[in-house]
């Protein structure tokens, strides 16, 4: 086997530019696979972390009638949970309202939250510290779309529990910046006590956010969604992205493998005398097939080495600076940070190495099988077979 490696190495080096072209394109495929998957994994980790910190906490206890995808349900989806059952839970009451910034009319969702909560990263303490009569928190996206800044007053119109209109001025007590647009777009955050007073829905909540100490209970009229349930949509999007991305890099890998395959076919055809000599010198056909296969798979080993030489500095640079995402992607409703920091796990790197080496070995072996059927005398004569 050692001899096979030595011979393969010498043959590859002897082939010169042809070898380096094959190695170049294979190493490019290798780097692209790791880069793309690393970026998706980085996005996955970041969005999960941010979604948990800003929106989901350790799960949501939702009112049975509440369906976040159906705005028809918001009107009646609220209920009261006994105090002893609401330990380790942060109540959120959701209502719909309209704001009138600069004489324009904008429908919004108003969310009442316990200002003393520590489960979510929302800076609700700003609501406690504000001297305004009705202080609210908004995100940067909401602030941009309504053209509001900290300290601005805006008229809010809402309906109480019976559907009667009420309206008053509210003050923007703080603007938070988050990567999770689902707690920002079209939303105003307010103290739940204030919202109870405004809507006459004292004690009611649409959902509760669990903290890490919460133990799920079976409660009539309430439905607990675990963190895993809540992250399912995000996981599905990421899985879909991985599959769609794999088409691109598998295409690239196929081109590289096709080049190796062609090289092998050509080698078997042109090096018949050499094959005949090996057999004449006492090598079995299997050993000769092995030699040619090792030669082919050595392209992939060289490709991983070359890929590491120029890939590692790029990957290190990317993990430090991150990859800027277009601002439009942050309006899509899924958690995307302004910069994604790729994550390159050992599993990803070794998995990609195995994929590249195994596929290169396979495509090298396929043309080399022909050697097993060769007549050694004809091979020595260089007769076409």
């Amino acid at each position, binding site marked *: 086997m050692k001899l096979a490696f030595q011979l393969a190495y010498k043959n590859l080096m002897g082939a010169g530019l042809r070898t380096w072209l094959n190695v170049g394109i294979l190493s490019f495929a290798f780097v692209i696979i790791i880069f793309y998957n690393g970026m998706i994994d980085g996005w996955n980790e970041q969005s999960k972390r941010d979604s948990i910190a800003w929106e989901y906490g350790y799960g949501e206890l939702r009112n049975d009638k509440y369906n976040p995808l159906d*705005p*028809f349900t*918001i*009107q009646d989806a609220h209920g009261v949970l006994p105090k002893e059952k609401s330990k380790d839970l942060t109540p959120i009451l959701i209502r*719909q309202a*309209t704001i*009138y910034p*600069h*004489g*324009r*009319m904008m*429908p919004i*969702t108003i969310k009442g939250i316990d200002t003393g909560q520590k489960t979510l990263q929302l800076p609700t303490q700003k609501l406690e510290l504000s001297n305004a009569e009705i202080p609210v928190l908004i995100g940067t996206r909401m602030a941009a779309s309504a053209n509001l800044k900290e300290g601005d007053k805006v*008229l809010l*119109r809402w*309906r*109480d529990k*019976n*559907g*009667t*209109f*009420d*309206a*008053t001025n509210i003050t923007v007590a703080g603007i938070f910046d988050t990567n999770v647009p689902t707690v920002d777009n*079209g939303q105003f955050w307010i103290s739940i006590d204030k919202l109870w007073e405004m809507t006459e829905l004292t004690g009611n909540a649409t959902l509760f956010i669990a903290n890490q100490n919460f133990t799920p209970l079976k409660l009539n009229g309430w439905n607990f969604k675990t963190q895993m349930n809540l992250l399912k949509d995000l996981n599905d999007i990421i899985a879909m992205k991985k599959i769609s991305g794999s088409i691109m890099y598998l295409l690239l890998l196929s081109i590289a493998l096709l080049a190796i395959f062609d090289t092998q076919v050509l080698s078997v055809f042109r090096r018949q005398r050499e094959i005949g000599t090996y057999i004449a010198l006492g090598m079995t056909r299997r050993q000769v097939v092995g030699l040619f296969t090792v030669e082919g798979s050595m392209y992939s080993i060289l490709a991983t080495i070359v890929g590491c030489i120029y890939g590692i500095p790029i990957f290190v640079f990317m993990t430090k600076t991150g990859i800027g995402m277009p601002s439009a992607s942050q309006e899509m409703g899924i958690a995307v940070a302004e910069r994604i920091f790729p994550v390159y796990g050992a599993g990803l790197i070794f998995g990609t190495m195995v994929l590249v080496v195994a596929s290169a070995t396979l495509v090298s072996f396929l043309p080399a099988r022909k050697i097993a059927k060769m007549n050694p005398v004809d091979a020595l004569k260089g007769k076409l077979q």
Partner: protein
Amino acid sequence: MKKILYLFLLPAFLNAQNTPDGADILRKVDKNMISKTSISTSQMVVHGRRGSRTITSKSYQKGEVNSFSEYLSPAREKGTKMLKLDDRLWIYSPSTDRTIQLSGHMLRQSVMGSDLSYEDMMEDRKLEEVYNAKVVGEDTIGGRKTWVLELSAKVDDATYEKRKEWIDKERYIPLKEELFAKSGELLKRVLLSDVEKIDGRWYPKKMNYKDMLKDGEGTDFIVDEITFDTDIPDYIFNKASLKQ
């Protein structure tokens, strides 16, 4: 001394005798404004920053809860239909050939850029059923003498807690309405004019709605033709009629 006292009190007494009861006024207003059925062709003139747009429509209304409208012009809106059954509202758009039920945010959006929201269009209960009324004064609007009424909700689910109405003393038609939030904030103002007698009842053919929280001149609603209490087949108030 007594005579002098009578002389002072008499005008006030006579005035009290002449001032009708608020509930009576509301009843008469409802009689004019609300009918069993109506079929109308109207224009909605939306005054925007860049000019005005006119949208014409034909509407069918039955009872207090069912209505059906079809937009006739401009070309962009032609064929758009709106159906309201109880507290649900559907819109059919011919360009997408789809019917959608409006809810939440969408209900609070303005109708074709006007000062009316879809939920405003869904308010159609009799004033008498919802409000207690008190005559608080008299005023003159457009040369017509009016009673000024303050209305306060007597039911929990009134859309506006308070209203102020200027009711024509002779024709029992509101000539001006102001609608207030619970906090007392003025939300909407409606000016009604071009009052005509149609099918034995007085009816204002022009209404100007102004959302007081928004900039702009408001929206004019002009009734070109209206007939009251004519038979309307039931199939009109059906979701299937949206796609016809």
